[in-house]
């Protein structure tokens, strides 16, 4: 179990984390969602023993961060935001070197690579230099490196950023496979809403503070509800709806009304049907959750 209590981190004049507290259960899939600068990477860097918090306390399986860092490092696997493997070396050379840093024997590392190459599908480019790999292949190599020491906790810092849709899909498939086939605790940071849908627990971070937390489903239910999207037939309908205290958002030529539930949408449709053009009633997305909680879009 990971326990974070009143975590603060500041860099000169910037408060990167401001009184952040949360608990991650063993074996759970935990997501930190937030825009750039929310404090996600700082949080990962503190958890991975790379940075010291300004104040607050972190314990990982009973090991106090700052006191028992060596024990914590034994348990961790980290995929950083950018690939940190040596570009001039092959994937195999990189893995062999990193394995040695965990004091594994050469034979043990070879066995681990053997196991990982089929699980992560890195066999076809195992002897290629990192600099020659595609973005998706590099990320798979990074994941293989993170799993080299059989970690109990896997930290994924925006692992899909910069990947093309297919590579993202492949990596995502791998992460889910890991979740299902191991008892590993996975902590993911992302600014992609769709990536947190399968997490057991989501924390929404903004400007270094926790704005909301819960399962993706609960967050959607509590903070997004339903949305009625429509294209107006009649110019006055927007004014009329606003006058009736509906909250409207404009997105290109469509308008969105935030609803308490789906039935409220049906009522509006019944009442204003002739003034509304194309319409649909949708369950709120995590984008809506973020917008409702922070008052701005995730990618702003």
């Amino acid at each position, binding site marked *: 179990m990971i326990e974070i209590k009143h975590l603060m981190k500041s860099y000169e004049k910037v408060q990167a984390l401001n009184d952040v507290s949360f608990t991650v259960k063993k074996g759970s899939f935990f997501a930190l969602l937030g825009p750039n600068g929310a404090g996600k990477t700082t949080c990962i860097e503190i958890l991975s023993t790379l940075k010291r918090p300004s104040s607050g306390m972190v314990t990982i399986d009973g090991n106090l961060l700052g006191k028992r860092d060596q024990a914590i490092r034994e348990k961790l696997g980290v995929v950083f935001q950018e690939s*940190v493997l040596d570009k001039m070396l092959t994937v195999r050379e990189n893995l062999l070197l990193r394995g*040695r840093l965990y004091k594994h024997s050469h034979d043990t590392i070879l066995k681990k690579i053997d196991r990982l190459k089929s699980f992560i599908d890195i066999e076809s480019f195992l002897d290629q230099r990192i600099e020659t790999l595609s973005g998706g292949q590099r990320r798979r190599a990074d994941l293989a490196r993170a799993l080299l020491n059989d970690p109990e906790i896997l930290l994924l810092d925006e692992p899909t950023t910069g990947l093309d849709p297919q590579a993202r899909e492949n990596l995502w498939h791998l992460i889910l496979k890991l979740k299902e086939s191991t008892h590993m605790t996975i902590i993911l940071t992302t600014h992609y809403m769709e990536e947190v849908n399968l997490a057991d627990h989501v924390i929404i971070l903004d400007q270094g503070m926790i704005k909301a937390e819960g399962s993706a489903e609960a967050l959607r239910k509590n903070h997004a509800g339903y949305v009625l999207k429509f294209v107006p037939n009649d110019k006055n309908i927007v004014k009329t709806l606003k006058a009736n205290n509906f909250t409207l958002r404009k997105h290109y030529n469509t308008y969105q009304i935030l609803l308490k539930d789906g039935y409220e949408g049906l009522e509006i449709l019944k009442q204003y049907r002739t003034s509304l053009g194309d319409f649909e009633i949708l369950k709120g997305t995590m984008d809506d959750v973020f917008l409702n909680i922070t008052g701005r879009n995730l990618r702003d």
Partner: protein
Amino acid sequence: MIDMRALIKRHIKCYLRDRWAVFFSFLSVFIILMLFVFFLGSYFEDISQQAGIDEKLAAYIVYGWIFSGLLMVSSVTIPLGFLERMVEDQTTRAMHDFQITPLKRYKIVFSYLAAAVIITLFMNTLNLTIGLGILYLNSGEVVPLFNLIQVIIIMALIATMFSGFFFFLLSFFKSQNAHGTFATLIGTLIGFLGGLYVPIGALSQTIQNIINALPFMQAAALLRQAYMAEALDMAFGTNQAARDSYTSFYGVEITLFNQTLSSHVLWLILISLTILILTASIWRMRHLKIA
């Protein structure tokens, strides 16, 4: 130790695979060699012949002087070029990947210093071998074993000293651009600081005092004394006045404020400096805390 050995191997492998990094580490050596091949070499040979020394012996002296000087130059430029890896690992956050392993932090930091000393010694051994080969082809002479052992010991000492010096200095660098600019500056100056572009005796007394006070010239002088001992004996025999005039002009012996520094004093200075630099480096290793 297995973990640190693996890291040292990694630094060296990455450096050797980066052909441009290796090339730039030797750029100053190439430039000085080219200058001698096309211009300065014959100038010095002429001077030696004017002093009444036969052509082969002149070649022994001139090439001995050039190659011992180049050993000092590469002892500076190789660790400086190599340690770009450390700056790069820090700025690209590659070092984070080592810091998340159970490997102790001081071992990570020390691995760069150890790798710099090893690669400098390895490259300089090649440098020395090639130099001795060229020297033999041109003069038919071989540097005596005793002097060669001395040269190798001095090489090891100054490889450690300059590696430690640049390790300490570059550990404060936060960008690769800063390293690049610094390396270019040192690469340009080193020919002067070692008294290779212009013999030290041709410079004004003030400049001589400044250059002779720096470890670059002191290291070059010590290397020259060992490398050229036999050549100087053969050329000047008992003519101490002619020998003194040659050795002080060409920076084989160096004087600081009209005081000639004996080889013992030079050894003492370089050993003390090495100890001081290593102490500062260890202090720096301990203080490279996580933010």
